[in-house]
């Protein structure tokens, strides 16, 4: 049964991907990408990888659609005709592909039960983590505790993505004279139903994000997903009530502060555990009982991740949307 569902989903995924390649209308491409990420999230669900599906749902279908659309608003909607011959790129791609396939020949067979990863790493996590970390959700134990360094690195990468976008597009500033902003606002003022429904649903989205943040230890979820969902709520507000309104609720400056605060919060847990005589991010030293220490450590670093991701996502959206507004006004 699960295999059948997988096959159907995968073939739908392949058809969507093929259609995306041959479409010239980039708007249609963005729409199909939305479907693509919905499909891949469904495959993750079907494979029982709930946390990954969660992330894909929030990031792939939500934030990336919004960001790609704002990029389209900046760049234009049709793909440029490529006049150059595609023989050389094709050759390069074929050569690289062949090299990669040759490389996989040495790898252990895909999905076989006697692969090294199923011999040492996975069983250890499954058997020892309830004793060592003590969280019901194994994925969170691995991500936040065993792989705490990686997750810290990822958070820093997300942060530097924000720095990159802001330095390319310019940081959005709160506009003082709201005359030109009024032009934009007028466009969506007509959507009364949308405004009322958004008003009703935004608080629920934010609360749901906070629920995801604090229940990452028990079920699917955690800081990353929570940050993205919360950012999506504010993006909805910005889309419906205009960017300048959103910037008055959460200012870009405050977001930049929050983003660095999130990363620092994560790092400070590491440094604190070093001061306590452990290694960097050694949660066992945070409290007298190692399990309690683990629990506290994970809670705080997840909070750091959540804050950082939220602030970064929203800042990037602000930067794009601000640029779009500026380019349409002039």
């Amino acid at each position, binding site marked *: 049964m699960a295999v059948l569902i997988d096959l159907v989903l995968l073939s739908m995924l392949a058809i969507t991907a093929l259609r995306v390649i041959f479409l010239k209308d980039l708007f249609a491409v963005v729409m199909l990408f939305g479907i693509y990420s919905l499909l891949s999230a469904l495959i993750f669900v079907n494979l029982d990888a709930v946390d990954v599906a969660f992330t894909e749902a929030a990031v792939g279908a939500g934030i990336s659609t919004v960001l790609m659309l704002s990029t389209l608003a900046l760049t234009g909607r049709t793909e440029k005709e490529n006049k150059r011959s595609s023989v050389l790129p094709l050759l390069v791609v074929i050569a690289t592909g062949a090299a990669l396939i040759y490389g996989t020949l040495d790898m252990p067979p895909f999905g076989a039960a006697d692969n090294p990863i199923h011999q040492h790493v996975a069983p250890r996590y499954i058997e020892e983590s309830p004793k060592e970390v003590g969280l019901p959700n194994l994925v969170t134990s691995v991500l936040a505790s065993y792989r705490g360094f990686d997750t810290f690195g990822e958070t820093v990468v997300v942060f530097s993505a924000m720095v990159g976008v802001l330095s390319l597009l310019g940081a959005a500033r709160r506009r003082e004279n709201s005359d030109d902003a009024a032009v934009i606002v007028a466009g969506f003022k007509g959507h009364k139903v*949308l405004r009322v429904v958004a008003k009703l649903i935004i608080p629920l989205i934010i609360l749901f994000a906070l629920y995801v943040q604090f229940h990452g230890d028990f079920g699917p979820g955690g800081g990353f997903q929570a940050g993205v969902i919360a950012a999506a709520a504010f993006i909805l507000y910005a889309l419906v009530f205009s960017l300048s309104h959103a910037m008055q609720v959460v200012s870009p400056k405050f977001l930049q502060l929050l983003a660095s605060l999130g990363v620092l919060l994560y790092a400070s847990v590491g440094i604190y555990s070093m001061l306590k005589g452990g290694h960097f991010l050694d949660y066992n030293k945070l409290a007298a009982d190692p399990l309690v220490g683990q629990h506290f450590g994970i809670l705080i670093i997840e909070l750091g991740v959540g804050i950082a991701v939220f602030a970064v996502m929203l800042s990037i959206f602000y930067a794009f949307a601000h640029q779009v507004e500026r380019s349409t006004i002039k």
Partner: protein
Amino acid sequence: MLVLDIVSSILLMTGIFFGFSGAVGLFRFPDFFTRVHAASITDSIAVILIIAGLLLQTSFDLNTAKLMFILMFLMITSPTASHALAKSARHGGLLTLGESKQQQKQQKEQMQQQEAGQ
């Protein structure tokens, strides 16, 4: 327990029937606005029936509440999305079936008048 299962199966199957009909309507109806009606079948009655069918499968705990939330969110957001989409389409200049027929008729008449004038 068996009665619940039967009722829930009936609900699920009816929901699927409506959902399928709506999806077919997406192809059989002549213009965009009528197709929104077809899609709204799958968004309203099919969702209600399928979630109701699943509700009977729960043991009336937190999952029941979560299913209710999903139903509630969909009932709030999907008509809003349909409305906003139809509104944008209308403001974007898409004509309804009657209007476009009328427009064609007018154009034809104009053409005929021009021909008669020549």
